[in-house]
Protein backbone atom coordinates (compact mmCIF):
# COMPACT_ATOMS: atom_id res chain seq x y z
CA UNK A 1 0.00 0.00 0.00
CA UNK A 2 1.12 3.50 -0.82
CA UNK A 3 -0.55 6.82 -0.15
CA UNK A 4 -1.59 9.61 -2.49
CA UNK A 5 -0.43 12.32 -0.11
CA UNK A 6 3.09 10.83 0.10
CA UNK A 7 3.71 11.32 -3.60
CA UNK A 8 6.81 9.22 -4.41
CA UNK A 9 5.40 6.09 -2.78
CA UNK A 10 2.90 5.01 -5.47
CA UNK A 11 5.15 4.92 -8.56
CA UNK A 12 7.84 3.08 -6.61
CA UNK A 13 5.32 0.63 -5.13
CA UNK A 14 4.36 -0.37 -8.68
CA UNK A 15 7.99 -1.24 -9.48
CA UNK A 16 8.34 -3.07 -6.22
CA UNK A 17 5.22 -5.14 -6.81
CA UNK A 18 6.36 -6.04 -10.29
CA UNK A 19 9.63 -7.25 -8.80
CA UNK A 20 8.00 -9.18 -5.92
CA UNK A 21 5.55 -10.88 -8.26
CA UNK A 22 8.44 -11.97 -10.47
CA UNK A 23 10.42 -13.37 -7.56
CA UNK A 24 7.45 -14.64 -5.55
CA UNK A 25 4.62 -15.24 -8.03
CA UNK A 26 2.63 -17.08 -5.35
CA UNK A 27 2.42 -13.78 -3.39
CA UNK A 28 0.08 -12.30 -6.03
CA UNK A 29 0.86 -8.79 -4.75
CA UNK A 30 -1.37 -5.97 -5.91
CA UNK A 31 -0.84 -2.21 -5.65
CA UNK A 32 -3.13 -0.21 -3.39
CA UNK A 33 -3.13 3.56 -3.07
CA UNK A 34 -4.79 5.05 0.00
CA UNK A 35 -6.33 8.49 -0.27
CA UNK A 36 -4.69 9.86 2.88
CA UNK A 37 -2.71 9.00 6.02
CA UNK A 38 -5.83 8.27 8.04
CA UNK A 39 -6.82 5.48 5.61
CA UNK A 40 -3.24 4.13 5.68
CA UNK A 41 -3.31 3.90 9.46
CA UNK A 42 -6.79 2.39 9.47
CA UNK A 43 -6.07 -0.31 6.87
CA UNK A 44 -2.63 -1.17 8.24
CA UNK A 45 -3.57 -1.26 11.91
CA UNK A 46 -6.62 -3.46 11.22
CA UNK A 47 -4.53 -6.00 9.27
CA UNK A 48 -6.28 -5.23 5.99
CA UNK A 49 -2.98 -4.31 4.33
CA UNK A 50 0.15 -6.27 5.26
CA UNK A 51 2.73 -3.88 3.79
CA UNK A 52 2.97 -0.12 3.52
CA UNK A 53 5.55 2.01 1.75
CA UNK A 54 6.16 5.45 3.25
CA UNK A 55 8.86 8.09 3.14
CA UNK A 56 11.25 7.81 6.10
CA UNK A 57 9.76 10.57 8.24
CA UNK A 58 6.21 9.34 7.70
CA UNK A 59 7.27 5.76 8.53
CA UNK A 60 8.72 6.97 11.83
CA UNK A 61 5.62 9.04 12.50
CA UNK A 62 3.27 6.10 11.84
CA UNK A 63 5.13 3.97 14.38
CA UNK A 64 5.41 6.72 16.98
CA UNK A 65 2.01 8.35 16.43
CA UNK A 66 3.49 11.70 15.50
CA UNK A 67 3.29 14.18 12.62
CA UNK A 68 0.57 13.20 10.14
CA UNK A 69 -0.38 10.25 12.37
CA UNK A 70 -0.55 12.17 15.65
CA UNK A 71 -4.32 11.88 16.12
CA UNK A 72 -4.29 8.08 15.70
CA UNK A 73 -1.62 7.24 18.30
CA UNK A 74 1.26 4.82 17.84
CA UNK A 75 0.91 1.88 15.44
CA UNK A 76 2.56 -1.53 15.63
CA UNK A 77 4.76 -1.87 12.56
CA UNK A 78 8.06 -3.57 11.77
CA UNK A 79 10.70 -2.53 9.29
CA UNK A 80 11.26 -4.82 6.33
CA UNK A 81 13.49 -2.92 3.89
CA UNK A 82 14.54 0.54 2.74
CA UNK A 83 14.95 2.13 -0.67
CA UNK A 84 16.66 5.51 -0.34
CA UNK A 85 14.17 7.68 1.51
CA UNK A 86 11.37 5.13 1.20
CA UNK A 87 10.73 2.54 3.91
CA UNK A 88 8.74 -0.67 3.51
CA UNK A 89 6.91 -1.47 6.76
CA UNK A 90 5.36 -4.83 7.49
CA UNK A 91 2.59 -5.97 9.82
CA UNK A 92 4.18 -7.54 12.94
CA UNK A 93 1.44 -10.21 12.85
CA UNK A 94 2.48 -11.40 9.40
CA UNK A 95 3.99 -14.92 9.68
CA UNK A 96 7.78 -15.15 9.96
CA UNK A 97 7.78 -17.32 6.87
CA UNK A 98 6.27 -14.50 4.75
CA UNK A 99 8.74 -11.91 6.05
CA UNK A 100 11.61 -14.37 5.47
CA UNK A 101 10.51 -14.94 1.86
CA UNK A 102 10.08 -11.24 1.19
CA UNK A 103 13.42 -10.26 2.67
CA UNK A 104 15.29 -12.89 0.74
CA UNK A 105 13.62 -11.68 -2.45
CA UNK A 106 14.45 -8.04 -1.69
CA UNK A 107 18.06 -8.88 -0.82
CA UNK A 108 18.49 -10.10 -4.38
CA UNK A 109 17.16 -6.84 -5.83
CA UNK A 110 20.31 -4.75 -5.48
CA UNK A 111 20.91 -4.74 -9.23
CA UNK A 112 17.42 -3.31 -9.77
CA UNK A 113 16.97 -1.04 -6.76
CA UNK A 114 20.41 0.52 -6.40
CA UNK A 115 19.59 2.34 -3.18
CA UNK A 116 18.30 -0.69 -1.27
CA UNK A 117 18.96 -0.57 2.48
CA UNK A 118 19.06 -3.66 4.67
CA UNK A 119 16.76 -3.38 7.71
CA UNK A 120 19.74 -3.76 10.07
CA UNK A 121 20.63 -0.20 9.12
CA UNK A 122 17.12 1.07 9.79
CA UNK A 123 16.76 0.20 13.45
CA UNK A 124 16.35 3.90 14.27
CA UNK A 125 12.98 3.76 12.55
CA UNK A 126 11.54 0.69 14.25
CA UNK A 127 12.02 -2.96 15.13
CA UNK A 128 12.88 -5.39 12.38
CA UNK A 129 10.36 -8.20 11.76
CA UNK A 130 11.59 -11.47 13.38
CA UNK A 131 11.18 -13.33 10.09
CA UNK A 132 13.40 -10.76 8.39
CA UNK A 133 16.04 -11.18 11.11
CA UNK A 134 16.00 -14.94 10.51
CA UNK A 135 16.60 -14.29 6.81
CA UNK A 136 19.42 -11.84 7.56
CA UNK A 137 21.06 -14.44 9.82
CA UNK A 138 20.92 -16.98 7.02
CA UNK A 139 18.57 -19.24 8.94
CA UNK A 140 16.34 -21.72 7.14
CA UNK A 141 12.84 -20.71 6.12
CA UNK A 142 10.56 -20.98 9.17
CA UNK A 143 7.53 -23.28 8.99
CA UNK A 144 5.06 -20.56 9.89
Amino acid at each position, binding site marked *: *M*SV*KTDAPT*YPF*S*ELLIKYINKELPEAQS*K*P*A*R*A*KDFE*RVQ*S*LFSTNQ*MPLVLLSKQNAKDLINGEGEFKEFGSTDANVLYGFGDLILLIQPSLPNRHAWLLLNALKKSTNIFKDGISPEKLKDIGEVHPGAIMALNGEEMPDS
Partner: protein
Amino acid sequence: MKKVILTLCFLVFSSSISYSDTTDQTWMNIVELKKTGDHCVDDKNCFNRYHPYIPPAAKANPGDIIILHTRDALDSEFKIDSIPADLATVDLGLVHPMTGPVHINGAKRGDAIEIELLDIAPDQYGYTVIAPGFGFLRDIFTEPYIVNWKLTRVGAVSAEIPGVTIPYEAFPGSIGVLPGIMEVNKYKTREAELAAAGGAALGPSPAGALPDAICGPNGSYKDDCLRTIPPRENGGNIDVQQMQIGTKMVFPCFIDGCGIFAGDIHYAQGDGEVSGTAIEMGSVMQIRVKILPGKGKDMDMPYVVGNDQIIDMEPTRYYQTIGIPLKAKGEIPPSHAYLDSSKFVDLENASEDLVIAARHALIQMIDYLVNEHGLTKEQAYVLCSVAADLRVGQVVDIPNYVVTAVLALDVFDKYRN
Protein backbone atom coordinates in the same frame (compact mmCIF):
# COMPACT_ATOMS: atom_id res chain seq x y z
CA MET B 1 -41.95 63.66 -29.78
CA LYS B 2 -41.86 60.42 -31.76
CA LYS B 3 -38.73 59.45 -29.82
CA VAL B 4 -40.47 60.07 -26.49
CA ILE B 5 -43.45 57.89 -27.50
CA LEU B 6 -41.15 55.08 -28.60
CA THR B 7 -39.24 55.27 -25.33
CA LEU B 8 -42.49 55.12 -23.35
CA CYS B 9 -43.64 52.10 -25.39
CA PHE B 10 -40.34 50.37 -24.68
CA LEU B 11 -40.59 51.06 -20.96
CA VAL B 12 -44.16 49.67 -20.83
CA PHE B 13 -43.04 46.59 -22.79
CA SER B 14 -39.98 46.10 -20.54
CA SER B 15 -42.02 46.31 -17.39
CA SER B 16 -44.55 43.82 -18.77
CA ILE B 17 -41.64 41.36 -19.37
CA SER B 18 -40.68 41.40 -15.72
CA TYR B 19 -44.31 40.71 -14.71
CA SER B 20 -44.56 37.79 -17.16
CA ASP B 21 -41.53 35.98 -15.75
CA THR B 22 -42.56 32.55 -14.43
CA THR B 23 -39.84 31.96 -11.89
CA ASP B 24 -41.74 33.50 -9.02
CA GLN B 25 -44.77 31.28 -9.63
CA THR B 26 -44.41 28.26 -7.34
CA TRP B 27 -46.73 25.55 -6.11
CA MET B 28 -44.42 22.93 -4.67
CA ASN B 29 -44.13 22.34 -0.97
CA ILE B 30 -40.52 21.25 -0.83
CA VAL B 31 -38.80 19.13 1.79
CA GLU B 32 -35.10 19.06 0.97
CA LEU B 33 -32.37 16.90 2.50
CA LYS B 34 -29.04 18.43 1.53
CA LYS B 35 -25.60 16.89 1.97
CA THR B 36 -23.24 18.22 4.60
CA GLY B 37 -19.55 17.32 4.76
CA ASP B 38 -17.55 15.12 2.44
CA HIS B 39 -18.88 11.75 3.53
CA CYS B 40 -21.81 10.05 5.15
CA VAL B 41 -20.13 10.16 8.55
CA ASP B 42 -20.18 13.99 8.36
CA ASP B 43 -23.84 14.15 7.39
CA LYS B 44 -26.86 14.01 9.69
CA ASN B 45 -29.07 13.16 6.68
CA CYS B 46 -27.09 10.02 5.84
CA PHE B 47 -26.95 6.44 7.14
CA ASN B 48 -25.65 3.10 5.82
CA ARG B 49 -27.44 0.36 7.74
CA TYR B 50 -31.16 -0.47 8.19
CA HIS B 51 -32.84 -0.45 11.57
CA PRO B 52 -36.27 0.81 12.67
CA TYR B 53 -34.80 3.04 15.39
CA ILE B 54 -32.76 5.19 13.00
CA PRO B 55 -34.32 8.60 13.65
CA PRO B 56 -35.97 10.50 10.79
CA ALA B 57 -33.86 13.19 9.16
CA ALA B 58 -37.03 15.03 8.07
CA LYS B 59 -40.81 14.79 8.00
CA ALA B 60 -42.96 15.27 4.91
CA ASN B 61 -46.62 15.14 3.96
CA PRO B 62 -48.03 13.09 1.10
CA GLY B 63 -47.81 15.24 -2.04
CA ASP B 64 -44.79 17.21 -0.87
CA ILE B 65 -41.85 17.33 -3.25
CA ILE B 66 -39.03 15.57 -1.43
CA ILE B 67 -35.56 16.42 -2.71
CA LEU B 68 -32.80 14.03 -1.72
CA HIS B 69 -29.14 14.88 -2.28
CA THR B 70 -27.51 11.47 -2.59
CA ARG B 71 -23.97 10.05 -2.39
CA ASP B 72 -22.24 7.44 -4.55
CA ALA B 73 -22.62 3.77 -3.63
CA LEU B 74 -19.17 3.36 -2.08
CA ASP B 75 -19.15 6.72 -0.25
CA SER B 76 -15.86 6.95 -2.10
CA GLU B 77 -13.09 9.43 -2.72
CA PHE B 78 -12.80 8.54 -6.39
CA LYS B 79 -11.91 11.36 -8.74
CA ILE B 80 -11.88 11.73 -12.51
CA ASP B 81 -8.24 10.53 -12.50
CA SER B 82 -8.67 7.56 -10.14
CA ILE B 83 -6.71 4.41 -10.89
CA PRO B 84 -7.24 0.71 -10.03
CA ALA B 85 -4.86 0.97 -7.05
CA ASP B 86 -7.29 3.42 -5.42
CA LEU B 87 -9.96 0.73 -5.44
CA ALA B 88 -8.00 -1.59 -3.15
CA THR B 89 -8.20 0.86 -0.26
CA VAL B 90 -11.96 1.48 -0.39
CA ASP B 91 -13.63 0.83 2.97
CA LEU B 92 -16.48 -1.56 2.15
CA GLY B 93 -17.95 -0.98 5.61
CA LEU B 94 -19.25 2.37 4.29
CA VAL B 95 -21.48 0.81 1.58
CA HIS B 96 -24.22 2.14 0.80
CA PRO B 97 -24.80 5.68 2.06
CA MET B 98 -28.53 6.40 2.03
CA THR B 99 -30.24 9.79 2.28
CA GLY B 100 -33.08 9.93 4.80
CA PRO B 101 -34.99 8.45 6.44
CA VAL B 102 -38.01 10.66 5.79
CA HIS B 103 -41.01 10.20 8.05
CA ILE B 104 -44.24 10.43 6.05
CA ASN B 105 -46.91 12.05 8.19
CA GLY B 106 -49.99 9.88 8.52
CA ALA B 107 -48.42 6.64 7.27
CA LYS B 108 -48.82 3.60 9.55
CA ARG B 109 -47.37 0.11 9.67
CA GLY B 110 -49.56 -1.97 7.36
CA ASP B 111 -50.03 0.84 4.85
CA ALA B 112 -48.17 0.92 1.57
CA ILE B 113 -46.28 3.94 0.28
CA GLU B 114 -46.16 4.85 -3.40
CA ILE B 115 -42.98 6.71 -4.34
CA GLU B 116 -43.18 8.57 -7.63
CA LEU B 117 -39.78 9.33 -9.16
CA LEU B 118 -39.93 12.88 -10.56
CA ASP B 119 -36.34 13.71 -11.46
CA ILE B 120 -32.69 12.78 -11.06
CA ALA B 121 -30.00 15.40 -11.69
CA PRO B 122 -26.62 13.67 -12.10
CA ASP B 123 -23.29 14.78 -10.67
CA GLN B 124 -20.64 15.55 -13.28
CA TYR B 125 -18.58 12.45 -12.41
CA GLY B 126 -19.38 8.77 -12.11
CA TYR B 127 -17.39 5.52 -11.99
CA THR B 128 -17.67 1.81 -12.69
CA VAL B 129 -15.31 -0.66 -11.05
CA ILE B 130 -14.32 -4.28 -11.10
CA ALA B 131 -13.62 -5.11 -7.46
CA PRO B 132 -11.72 -8.37 -6.81
CA GLY B 133 -13.98 -10.91 -5.12
CA PHE B 134 -17.17 -9.17 -6.22
CA GLY B 135 -19.34 -9.35 -9.33
CA PHE B 136 -20.99 -12.08 -11.41
CA LEU B 137 -17.73 -13.28 -13.01
CA ARG B 138 -15.55 -12.78 -9.94
CA ASP B 139 -13.77 -16.06 -10.59
CA ILE B 140 -12.64 -14.78 -14.01
CA PHE B 141 -12.03 -11.06 -13.36
CA THR B 142 -9.70 -11.01 -10.36
CA GLU B 143 -7.83 -7.73 -10.90
CA PRO B 144 -9.10 -4.27 -9.87
CA TYR B 145 -10.20 -1.96 -12.67
CA ILE B 146 -11.91 1.43 -12.83
CA VAL B 147 -13.61 3.47 -15.53
CA ASN B 148 -14.09 7.18 -14.78
CA TRP B 149 -17.09 8.67 -16.57
CA LYS B 150 -17.80 12.30 -17.49
CA LEU B 151 -21.54 12.77 -17.18
CA THR B 152 -24.09 15.02 -18.85
CA ARG B 153 -27.72 14.22 -19.53
CA VAL B 154 -26.74 13.57 -23.14
CA GLY B 155 -24.39 10.71 -22.35
CA ALA B 156 -21.53 9.32 -20.28
CA VAL B 157 -18.07 9.17 -21.84
CA SER B 158 -14.73 8.00 -20.49
CA ALA B 159 -11.05 8.01 -21.39
CA GLU B 160 -10.86 4.35 -20.34
CA ILE B 161 -13.37 3.17 -22.99
CA PRO B 162 -12.99 5.62 -25.87
CA GLY B 163 -15.55 5.57 -28.68
CA VAL B 164 -18.39 4.62 -26.36
CA THR B 165 -21.23 6.84 -25.09
CA ILE B 166 -23.71 5.46 -22.58
CA PRO B 167 -27.19 7.01 -22.70
CA TYR B 168 -28.67 8.67 -19.63
CA GLU B 169 -31.11 6.26 -18.01
CA ALA B 170 -30.81 7.12 -14.35
CA PHE B 171 -32.61 5.35 -11.53
CA PRO B 172 -32.13 4.71 -7.82
CA GLY B 173 -30.06 1.58 -7.21
CA SER B 174 -31.35 1.63 -3.66
CA ILE B 175 -34.70 2.95 -2.50
CA GLY B 176 -37.07 1.71 0.13
CA VAL B 177 -38.45 1.91 3.64
CA LEU B 178 -37.03 0.96 7.03
CA PRO B 179 -37.83 -2.56 8.26
CA GLY B 180 -39.69 -3.08 11.54
CA ILE B 181 -38.29 -5.08 14.47
CA MET B 182 -40.14 -8.21 13.32
CA GLU B 183 -38.66 -7.87 9.85
CA VAL B 184 -35.12 -7.32 11.18
CA ASN B 185 -35.36 -10.53 13.20
CA LYS B 186 -36.82 -12.47 10.27
CA TYR B 187 -34.16 -11.30 7.80
CA LYS B 188 -31.33 -11.87 10.28
CA THR B 189 -32.47 -15.42 11.02
CA ARG B 190 -32.82 -16.55 7.44
CA GLU B 191 -29.55 -14.91 6.36
CA ALA B 192 -27.68 -16.49 9.28
CA GLU B 193 -29.03 -19.89 8.21
CA LEU B 194 -27.82 -19.25 4.69
CA ALA B 195 -24.38 -18.13 5.91
CA ALA B 196 -24.12 -21.29 8.03
CA ALA B 197 -24.79 -23.29 4.89
CA GLY B 198 -21.91 -21.49 3.15
CA GLY B 199 -24.10 -19.05 1.23
CA ALA B 200 -23.11 -15.49 0.42
CA ALA B 201 -24.87 -13.72 3.29
CA LEU B 202 -23.42 -10.83 5.25
CA GLY B 203 -24.40 -10.44 8.88
CA PRO B 204 -24.45 -7.13 10.76
CA SER B 205 -21.06 -5.43 10.69
CA PRO B 206 -20.59 -2.44 13.04
CA ALA B 207 -17.29 -1.19 11.53
CA GLY B 208 -18.11 1.97 9.60
CA ALA B 209 -21.82 1.59 10.34
CA LEU B 210 -23.97 4.73 10.54
CA PRO B 211 -25.63 6.17 12.46
CA ASP B 212 -22.80 5.42 14.83
CA ALA B 213 -24.90 5.76 18.00
CA ILE B 214 -27.25 2.97 16.84
CA CYS B 215 -25.26 0.80 14.43
CA GLY B 216 -21.58 1.60 15.13
CA PRO B 217 -19.14 -0.51 17.20
CA ASN B 218 -20.60 0.87 20.45
CA GLY B 219 -24.08 1.40 19.06
CA SER B 220 -27.19 0.43 20.99
CA TYR B 221 -28.34 -1.99 18.23
CA LYS B 222 -25.01 -2.83 16.59
CA ASP B 223 -25.88 -6.52 16.19
CA ASP B 224 -29.24 -5.81 14.59
CA CYS B 225 -28.42 -3.19 11.95
CA LEU B 226 -28.82 -4.81 8.55
CA ARG B 227 -26.29 -4.44 5.75
CA THR B 228 -27.56 -2.63 2.66
CA ILE B 229 -26.17 -5.03 0.05
CA PRO B 230 -29.07 -7.49 -0.37
CA PRO B 231 -32.47 -6.19 -1.47
CA ARG B 232 -35.25 -7.42 0.79
CA GLU B 233 -38.99 -6.97 1.33
CA ASN B 234 -38.32 -3.37 2.42
CA GLY B 235 -36.69 -2.61 -0.95
CA GLY B 236 -33.14 -1.31 -0.69
CA ASN B 237 -30.52 -2.35 -3.22
CA ILE B 238 -32.92 -3.60 -5.89
CA ASP B 239 -30.80 -2.37 -8.83
CA VAL B 240 -33.58 -2.63 -11.40
CA GLN B 241 -32.99 -0.18 -14.21
CA GLN B 242 -36.65 0.04 -15.23
CA MET B 243 -37.33 2.18 -12.13
CA GLN B 244 -36.91 5.26 -14.31
CA ILE B 245 -38.08 8.83 -13.91
CA GLY B 246 -41.86 8.77 -14.18
CA THR B 247 -42.36 5.34 -12.63
CA LYS B 248 -44.01 4.70 -9.28
CA MET B 249 -42.58 2.24 -6.76
CA VAL B 250 -44.78 0.80 -4.05
CA PHE B 251 -43.37 -0.45 -0.73
CA PRO B 252 -45.05 -1.97 2.33
CA CYS B 253 -44.65 0.21 5.43
CA PHE B 254 -43.16 -1.64 8.39
CA ILE B 255 -42.96 1.28 10.81
CA ASP B 256 -45.18 4.30 11.43
CA GLY B 257 -44.01 7.04 9.08
CA CYS B 258 -42.45 4.39 6.79
CA GLY B 259 -38.94 5.86 6.98
CA ILE B 260 -38.31 6.24 3.26
CA PHE B 261 -34.80 6.58 1.89
CA ALA B 262 -32.85 6.48 -1.38
CA GLY B 263 -29.25 6.52 -2.58
CA ASP B 264 -26.75 4.60 -4.71
CA ILE B 265 -28.10 6.32 -7.82
CA HIS B 266 -27.07 4.82 -11.14
CA TYR B 267 -26.56 6.98 -14.21
CA ALA B 268 -27.09 3.81 -16.28
CA GLN B 269 -26.94 0.05 -15.77
CA GLY B 270 -27.51 -3.08 -17.78
CA ASP B 271 -29.93 -5.71 -16.51
CA GLY B 272 -27.56 -7.77 -14.40
CA GLU B 273 -25.05 -5.08 -13.31
CA VAL B 274 -22.60 -7.86 -13.93
CA SER B 275 -19.29 -6.31 -12.81
CA GLY B 276 -20.90 -5.40 -9.50
CA THR B 277 -21.28 -1.71 -10.23
CA ALA B 278 -23.24 0.47 -12.65
CA ILE B 279 -22.24 4.04 -13.50
CA GLU B 280 -22.22 5.07 -9.85
CA MET B 281 -22.79 8.70 -9.00
CA GLY B 282 -24.10 11.24 -6.56
CA SER B 283 -27.28 13.06 -7.54
CA VAL B 284 -30.14 15.29 -6.60
CA MET B 285 -33.37 13.36 -6.91
CA GLN B 286 -36.97 14.46 -6.55
CA ILE B 287 -39.76 12.19 -5.38
CA ARG B 288 -43.37 12.52 -4.29
CA VAL B 289 -45.23 10.05 -2.12
CA LYS B 290 -48.79 8.86 -1.61
CA ILE B 291 -50.09 6.66 1.21
CA LEU B 292 -52.11 3.59 0.20
CA PRO B 293 -53.97 2.84 3.46
CA GLY B 294 -53.86 -0.81 4.56
CA LYS B 295 -52.33 -1.95 1.27
CA GLY B 296 -49.04 -3.03 2.79
CA LYS B 297 -50.51 -5.89 4.81
CA ASP B 298 -50.77 -8.29 1.89
CA MET B 299 -47.65 -7.26 0.01
CA ASP B 300 -44.86 -9.82 -0.27
CA MET B 301 -42.44 -7.48 -2.00
CA PRO B 302 -42.31 -3.96 -3.46
CA TYR B 303 -43.53 -3.50 -7.02
CA VAL B 304 -43.15 -0.94 -9.79
CA VAL B 305 -45.69 0.56 -12.17
CA GLY B 306 -44.79 2.57 -15.24
CA ASN B 307 -45.96 3.68 -18.65
CA ASP B 308 -43.65 3.86 -21.66
CA GLN B 309 -40.37 4.01 -19.73
CA ILE B 310 -39.36 0.48 -20.76
CA ILE B 311 -40.01 1.22 -24.43
CA ASP B 312 -37.80 4.32 -24.26
CA MET B 313 -34.92 2.15 -23.04
CA GLU B 314 -35.13 -0.44 -25.83
CA PRO B 315 -32.28 -0.50 -28.37
CA THR B 316 -32.80 0.50 -31.98
CA ARG B 317 -30.09 -1.95 -33.11
CA TYR B 318 -28.54 -4.66 -31.04
CA TYR B 319 -26.39 -7.75 -30.75
CA GLN B 320 -27.72 -10.67 -28.72
CA THR B 321 -25.92 -13.75 -27.43
CA ILE B 322 -27.80 -16.88 -26.36
CA GLY B 323 -26.82 -18.76 -23.23
CA ILE B 324 -27.81 -22.23 -22.10
CA PRO B 325 -26.64 -23.95 -18.90
CA LEU B 326 -23.30 -25.18 -20.21
CA LYS B 327 -20.06 -25.08 -18.28
CA ALA B 328 -16.68 -26.79 -18.31
CA LYS B 329 -16.33 -30.17 -16.67
CA GLY B 330 -14.81 -29.60 -13.23
CA GLU B 331 -15.88 -25.94 -13.14
CA ILE B 332 -17.86 -24.66 -10.18
CA PRO B 333 -18.84 -21.00 -10.55
CA PRO B 334 -18.70 -19.07 -7.25
CA SER B 335 -22.50 -18.88 -7.15
CA HIS B 336 -22.70 -22.68 -6.83
CA ALA B 337 -19.72 -23.36 -4.55
CA TYR B 338 -21.84 -23.45 -1.38
CA LEU B 339 -23.85 -26.38 -2.73
CA ASP B 340 -20.69 -28.51 -2.41
CA SER B 341 -22.11 -30.92 -4.96
CA SER B 342 -19.94 -33.68 -6.35
CA LYS B 343 -22.73 -34.37 -8.82
CA PHE B 344 -22.60 -30.82 -10.22
CA VAL B 345 -18.85 -30.43 -10.61
CA ASP B 346 -18.41 -33.09 -13.29
CA LEU B 347 -21.37 -32.05 -15.41
CA GLU B 348 -20.90 -30.06 -18.60
CA ASN B 349 -24.63 -29.46 -18.90
CA ALA B 350 -26.47 -28.16 -15.83
CA SER B 351 -30.19 -28.69 -15.59
CA GLU B 352 -32.74 -25.84 -15.68
CA ASP B 353 -30.12 -23.41 -14.40
CA LEU B 354 -30.53 -19.73 -15.26
CA VAL B 355 -27.34 -18.64 -13.50
CA ILE B 356 -25.16 -20.92 -15.61
CA ALA B 357 -27.09 -19.90 -18.72
CA ALA B 358 -26.53 -16.23 -17.86
CA ARG B 359 -22.78 -16.82 -17.49
CA HIS B 360 -22.76 -18.57 -20.85
CA ALA B 361 -24.53 -15.63 -22.53
CA LEU B 362 -22.37 -13.02 -20.83
CA ILE B 363 -19.04 -14.68 -21.61
CA GLN B 364 -20.08 -14.88 -25.27
CA MET B 365 -20.92 -11.15 -25.23
CA ILE B 366 -17.53 -10.30 -23.73
CA ASP B 367 -15.83 -12.42 -26.39
CA TYR B 368 -17.84 -10.63 -29.10
CA LEU B 369 -16.82 -7.20 -27.79
CA VAL B 370 -13.17 -8.24 -27.59
CA ASN B 371 -13.06 -9.92 -31.00
CA GLU B 372 -15.31 -7.61 -33.03
CA HIS B 373 -14.82 -4.23 -31.35
CA GLY B 374 -11.26 -4.49 -30.08
CA LEU B 375 -12.05 -3.90 -26.42
CA THR B 376 -9.97 -5.42 -23.66
CA LYS B 377 -11.75 -8.04 -21.53
CA GLU B 378 -12.01 -5.55 -18.66
CA GLN B 379 -13.48 -2.83 -20.91
CA ALA B 380 -15.96 -5.37 -22.28
CA TYR B 381 -17.01 -6.56 -18.81
CA VAL B 382 -17.57 -2.98 -17.66
CA LEU B 383 -19.50 -2.14 -20.84
CA CYS B 384 -21.74 -5.15 -20.21
CA SER B 385 -22.26 -4.00 -16.62
CA VAL B 386 -23.50 -0.57 -17.67
CA ALA B 387 -25.27 -1.36 -20.95
CA ALA B 388 -25.91 -5.07 -21.68
CA ASP B 389 -29.17 -6.65 -20.55
CA LEU B 390 -29.40 -10.26 -19.37
CA ARG B 391 -32.86 -11.49 -20.28
CA VAL B 392 -34.63 -14.75 -19.61
CA GLY B 393 -35.63 -16.34 -22.92
CA GLN B 394 -37.52 -19.37 -21.68
CA VAL B 395 -37.84 -21.61 -18.62
CA VAL B 396 -39.48 -24.66 -20.19
CA ASP B 397 -37.17 -26.32 -22.72
CA ILE B 398 -35.51 -28.74 -20.30
CA PRO B 399 -32.70 -28.98 -19.46
CA ASN B 400 -31.55 -25.90 -21.37
CA TYR B 401 -33.30 -22.79 -20.12
CA VAL B 402 -32.17 -19.74 -22.09
CA VAL B 403 -30.75 -16.43 -20.93
CA THR B 404 -29.64 -13.92 -23.54
CA ALA B 405 -27.36 -10.92 -23.32
CA VAL B 406 -28.51 -7.92 -25.37
CA LEU B 407 -26.31 -4.95 -26.13
CA ALA B 408 -27.59 -1.80 -27.85
CA LEU B 409 -24.98 -1.20 -30.51
CA ASP B 410 -25.75 2.52 -30.42
CA VAL B 411 -23.39 2.80 -27.46
CA PHE B 412 -20.60 2.78 -30.04
CA ASP B 413 -20.07 6.29 -31.40
CA LYS B 414 -19.33 4.85 -34.85
CA TYR B 415 -22.98 3.81 -35.18
CA ARG B 416 -24.45 7.16 -34.19
CA ASN B 417 -24.60 10.66 -35.68
